[in-house]
């Protein structure tokens, strides 16, 4: 299978799975009196359309993908997972610190800055954390 078509066939399969999951998930939804469709109607119509789109993407994957983006290899995917982990770290740190979001953001920025090979990692991340804390907690009182 050509590399490019993977990025269209996989979404096609995902769409088909999603359509089936929605259809199954809406079976327990209540109907309106006299048997008219209720909350399940819109998701079911979407499931039908998703299935059609999924079949279309799977059987006729367009040759054109976004050529402006580079192909990601093993290390690239690892770095992306690193970025995702950094952001998830924010969720872990956020409830445990007295200054809340700013500390989580400082850690995230520190990680991304290290990855981006910035020399002054600590200064960059600390400055970003302080600015965010001052802006949101101080100036805007959010």
């Amino acid at each position, binding site marked *: 299978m050509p590399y490019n078509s993977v*990025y269209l066939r996989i979404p096609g399969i995902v769409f088909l799975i999603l359509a089936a999951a929605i259809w199954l998930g809406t079976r327990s939804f209540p109907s309106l009196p006299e048997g008219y469709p209720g909350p399940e109607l819109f998701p079911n119509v979407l499931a039908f359309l998703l299935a059609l789109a999924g079949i279309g993407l799977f059987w006729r994957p367009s040759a054109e993908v976004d050529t402006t983006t580079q192909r990601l290899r093993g290390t690239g995917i690892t770095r992306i997972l690193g970025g995702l982990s950094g952001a998830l770290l*924010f969720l872990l740190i956020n409830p445990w610190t007295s200054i809340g979001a700013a500390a989580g953001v400082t850690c995230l920025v520190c990680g991304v800055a290290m990855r981006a090979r910035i020399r002054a990692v600590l200064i960059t991340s600390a400055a970003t954390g302080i600015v965010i804390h001052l802006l949101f907690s101080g100036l805007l009182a959010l």
Partner: protein
Amino acid sequence: MTFVSWESVLALIVGALYGALFGAVPGLTATLAVALFIPVAFFLDATIALPAIIAISSVAIYAGDVGSAIARIPGTPASAAYADELHNLSRSRGVLYGLGISALGSSVGGILGTLVLAGGALALATLAAMFSSFEYFWIAVLGLSAGIFASGRHLLKGFASLLIGLLLSTVGVDPTLGYPRFHFGNPAFLGGLDYIAVMIGLFGFSEVLYHMGAGTKSAPAAHASIHRKALSNFYAGPLKLIRKTRKLVIRSSLFGIFVGFLPGAGADIGSWVACSLEKLTAKRKKNEERVVLAGVSSNNAAVASAWIPALSLGLPGDTVTAMVLGVFMMKGVTPGPLLFQEQMPLIWILFGTFLIANLLLLPTVGLLTARIAGTALRLPFNLLLPIIAAACVTGAYAINHNPLDVGIMILMGAVALMLRRGGFPLAQVVLGMVLGPILEQHFMVSAIKSNWNPLSFFERPIALVLMGACVATVILGIIAHKRRLTGRDKGS
């Protein structure tokens, strides 16, 4: 009651700067800016509080484009319609030029919206009152069909992106029976997904992830003359473009006005239809300037026209005007047709403020924000990347102070990375999320009140006109699509 007092001038200036800050920071919106201003408005006179709100909302809507220009993060769903074009334009022609088009286009749209507000508020409000669920349903369909055909060569991908957005909009309590759908046992999902968090993930965080993965060390070179010839780039160039494309600006503003004055429809559909029409009818391939101009003029025209039903019928056109109605009540002013007879001085102050906000504040505060944005773009890319990451996380968290929004933002960033690689347009996901609830609610209301008679959707004259517009969009879209494919074949 005097308009030119030092307090009111100060309120306008502070309101504009405050609006610019909220518009430019991802996650902060014009609605949030106005909401945080309401406690302050309680202590101010109506002639100061209301102009300040106008300044905040007008400038914040424009400043939402700053994120698009710097980091492809649109501030509102309406600005998602032209975010790619504005970002590319800011990179290729300079951020001052890109944001100059945005500020001056917004300014012209806002002025046209104000003139309509001043000239025909009562007549338009009467027309808005004739809109029922059938018409709203067709308007949502019009917005969705415009979104599909605005997606470029690959209609199937645009359609798929739209379906993802529509699917995300089904999370939460359904509009018919109030039945909770797809909430996975988490009460936080009952209110639905926040589209701002989704938008930040789709556009902003995916960009960070992509550049981390690809190991990008420098961004595509920004236009060198960011600070040189500032006045020429920000004012002269965009003004020349607006003069050259005045028909487009007027047409797009009219779209914005038309949708803006319909309570609940919002500015988003107008902006999407205006951009889509420009993309479909474009004779040249490189029409980024025209698409941005169409979107921004429609976007800001709707800000003014959203006040039409609020002032003349007491019905909010959007969330900002809903809060404005609260301020009216707080100050003992009752909105409605009598407002135009009993409170004429206040009405003139509002019209005057809209004109000042669009004629003076947008161009001046616009230049200030564009210069700051220009400086941000000159930062080394490896320094900009962690700052964008921080802005994404903080922006998503600031919406509701809910870590769940950060989780949704992260997830959408990862999904967007896959979608981008497959060439799926991202803006259509946002459009689907925004229009999904409008479409479903008005379809269900129409179906139930007509006892599920499908013909009832075609019986009302305005509904028929809107349906005709949908059919015209589809036909125009198919013709344009075929023309694009033929052009591609010839090109190859």
